[in-house]
């Protein structure tokens, strides 16, 4: 039971604030105490809310025609739950506080419960439409939380326009002693729920030197991410794994701690820091999940040196299997699809697609490549450089010339940032446009993606979860004049620099993965098979 009474009093609170001000890392006990205090404060607040809500809500509920008297008793107790939805207390609490109905009604109660839940759902929808109700009504499905105590939440990085969430994030970062990065510039209203940072203000400027909380290789990695020095899904994951290897090498288990638990806790602030520098990609998320699982599976009797070498070999094997060997397998399948005389269109710079084309050229397939590029990143130039170096004949166009060049094209090869569970392909912005126009011209579209980039997320549009890059990148200086120099002064002007977009599966003909060639709709099957293996 969490109700163990008041903590040891105000004395410990002073200790905690003192150590925070000194910049030391909070000890484990202090962190636990902080957590407990906060939980109890929230519980008290919620109990107060409930009492006031039950008095408020009783009047509108009595107007509803009650089929059974038990149902009305249940409804008001279900209603306070939407008001307290953002508070992470198991929602079974409201049920306990409701008046206990007669034991004779017990079998009938289950039907009444369902009816009450249904009505509660209707009430929350109605309440959410009314002004003055908390915006949390939209976020979490309350009736669901009554059925299972785990409340599912939206991730914090897509709720930037909600001040409660931002405050929570700030508190979490404060606890982990990581500076909070502030947003920059005016955000277009459709994307105001996402972060928008400036490249001129990297997070590392706000860190004290030397930083005792964050490992230096992680600081370097964060800077490389935020400045765009390391870019591209595979490159970022590999860099992350190498940085973690360094962290593990430098790690020593503190006394009275277990490596398997302490190392995972050590990694959490690093991950928050990297997230602040640049939002994590799906591939990085999967890599982190894997590492955490490996660490927590280390048996407790394992010696520290042995455990460390084991972890290092695990990481090496992950990189080797999921990235390097997967690329070889994918090229093997993809080369079957490249025939002599082909004209292949590629977009931007995907390490995997470049690998495939170089391998096909080595196997003396005769084809030529059209590289499509787009501002402001102009990544296609890098791809062009790599291909021309190998001797492949290339053409270079900007994306505005796409419908002009497509009648010549026989196949389109695209890379992917992630493959979502409903078959949508998340990739660099502009990819869905290419897939759409290619479909109109009846040109087959092939997406190449390793299986470690498959993620369980579901998205049907590019708005709900995306990344906003520095809007200053859109400014361009020609003939000494920069047109958008003072864009911040124009109040009605917003610059939007999107990074990703999603392509629906009907535009994609084939996905080439290391498991073979599958249609886009079979991604959930692969995820299911992989989960069975694990």
């Amino acid at each position, binding site marked *: 039971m969490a109700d163990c009474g008041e903590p040891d009093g105000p004395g410990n609170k002073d200790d905690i604030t003192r150590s925070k001000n000194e910049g030391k890392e909070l000890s484990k006990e202090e962190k636990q105490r902080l957590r407990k205090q906060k939980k109890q404060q929230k519980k008290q607040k919620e109990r107060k809310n409930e009492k006031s809500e039950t008095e408020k809500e009783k009047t509108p509920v009595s107007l509803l025609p009650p089929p059974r008297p038990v149902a009305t008793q249940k409804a008001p107790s279900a209603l306070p739950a939407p008001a307290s939805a953002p508070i992470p207390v198991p929602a079974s609490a409201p049920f306990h506080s409701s008046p206990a109905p007669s034991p004779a009604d017990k079998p009938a109660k289950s039907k009444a419960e369902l009816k009450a839940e249904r009505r509660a759902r209707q009430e929350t929808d109605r309440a959410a439409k009314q002004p003055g109700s908390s915006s949390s009504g939209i976020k979490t499905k309350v009736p669901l939380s009554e059925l299972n105590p785990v409340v599912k939440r939206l991730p914090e990085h897509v709720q930037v326009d909600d001040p409660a969430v931002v405050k929570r994030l700030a508190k979490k970062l404060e606890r982990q002693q990581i500076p909070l990065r502030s947003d920059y510039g005016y955000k277009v209203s459709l994307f105001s729920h996402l972060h928008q940072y400036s490249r001129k203000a990297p997070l590392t400027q706000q860190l004290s030197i030397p930083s005792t909380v964050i490992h230096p290789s992680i600081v370097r990695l964060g800077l490389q991410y935020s400045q765009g020095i390391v870019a591209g899904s595979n490159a970022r994951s590999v860099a992350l794994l190498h940085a973690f290897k360094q962290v593990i090498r430098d790690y020593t288990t503190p006394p009275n701690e277990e490596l398997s638990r302490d190392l995972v806790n050590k990694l959490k602030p690093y991950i928050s820091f990297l997230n602040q520098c640049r939002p994590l990609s799906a591939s990085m998320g999967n890599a982190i999940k894997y590492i955490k699982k490996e660490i927590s599976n280390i048996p407790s009797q394992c010696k520290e040196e042995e455990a460390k070498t084991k972890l290092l070999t695990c990481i090496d094997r992950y990189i080797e299997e999921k990235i390097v060997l997967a690329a070889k397998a994918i090229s093997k399948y993809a080369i079957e699809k490249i*025939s002599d005389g082909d004209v292949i269109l590629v977009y931007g710079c995907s390490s995997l697609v470049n690998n495939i084309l170089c391998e096909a050229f080595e196997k003396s397939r005769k084809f030529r490549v059209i590289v499509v590029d787009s501002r402001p990143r102009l990544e296609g130039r890098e791809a062009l450089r790599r291909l021309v170096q190998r001797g492949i004949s290339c053409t270079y166009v900007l994306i505005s010339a796409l419908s002009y060049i497509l009648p010549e094209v026989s196949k389109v090869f695209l890379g992917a940032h992630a493959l979502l569970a409903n078959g949508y392909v998340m990739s660099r912005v502009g990819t869905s446009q290419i897939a759409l126009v290619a479909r109109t011209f009846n040109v*087959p579209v092939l997406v190449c993606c390793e299986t470690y980039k498959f993620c369980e997320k579901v998205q049907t549009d590019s708005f709900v979860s995306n990344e906003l890059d520095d809007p200053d990148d859109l400014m361009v200086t020609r003939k000494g004049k920069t047109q958008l120099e003072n864009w911040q002064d124009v109040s009605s002007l917003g610059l939007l620099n999107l990074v990703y977009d999603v392509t629906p599966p009907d535009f994609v003909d084939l996905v080439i993965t290391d498991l073979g*060639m*599958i249609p886009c709709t*079979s991604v959930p*099957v692969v995820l299911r*098979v992989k989960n069975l293996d694990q």
Partner: protein
Amino acid sequence: LESLICSKYFRTQVRQDPEVPSAVAAIRTLLEFLKRDQTGETILGLRENLTQTIRRLEEADSSVAVSSGGELFLRFISLTSLEHPDLSQCKKVMVERGELFLKKISLSRSKVAKLCHTFIKDGAKILTHSSSRVVLKVLESAAADKKRFTVYVTESQPDSAGRQMADKLQNLNIPVTVVLDAAVGYIMEKVDLVIVGAEGVVESGGIINKIGTYQLAVCSKAHNKPFYVVAESFKFVRLYPLNQQDVPERFKYKADTLKAVEDLAEEHPMIDYTPPSLITLLFTDLGVLTPSAVSDELIKLYL
């Protein structure tokens, strides 16, 4: 010497029972080979021999079904190699499993017919293409269920297989009309549904079938008529064509043509590829599937 025996056995199988699917005949041949094979010393050697036999059978009959049936048989029995280290015992288990597999797939045609004939309503007008034994079985069971329907069959040149189908249907007392391949667009507004067989079902959920099927599918999509495919599960093959040209040459032409003719560009292909977007449902012995579910089944079968 062995190759001659194999192809002769295969051909006698096909001749003895014209109703048997070519894949089943191929699998019977492979099973015979397995029983008679004395030279295999290792499991790998045995696999090699079987793969060679399949290739020789493909030379005898180049349809997709033979290659898919052979590959499935190989997969079905080779999983035993992990369990029994002793070769002779392994062989015995392989033969047993092969017989079991054969028995299962011989019943598949009737399973498909049972699933599909409920989709034929009384008074329906059905359009079908060329001669398919599975479609014949479906129509037979629908007629046995006392349903009244009329059938239009395309003539299906260059071998006029449609006419043979029309004769068989007439023997079952089903009213049938033969139409020209070119008249498919003309007749489409009269029909209620289109049912075709398949020589192979590919990973994307599309089918490989007699030339003219793709045209039929495009017309039925334009008229919003349902396009049903009936196929047994051993016809699922690990191909993924992107368009018509992407289908391998060894399936496009008859086996004799492949051997005799030098320049295949002069020859007319015997099959075409119908993409999954034009297919409404596939009836197989694994159940009624949508085209996207085919990949799911294939992953289960092969991975």
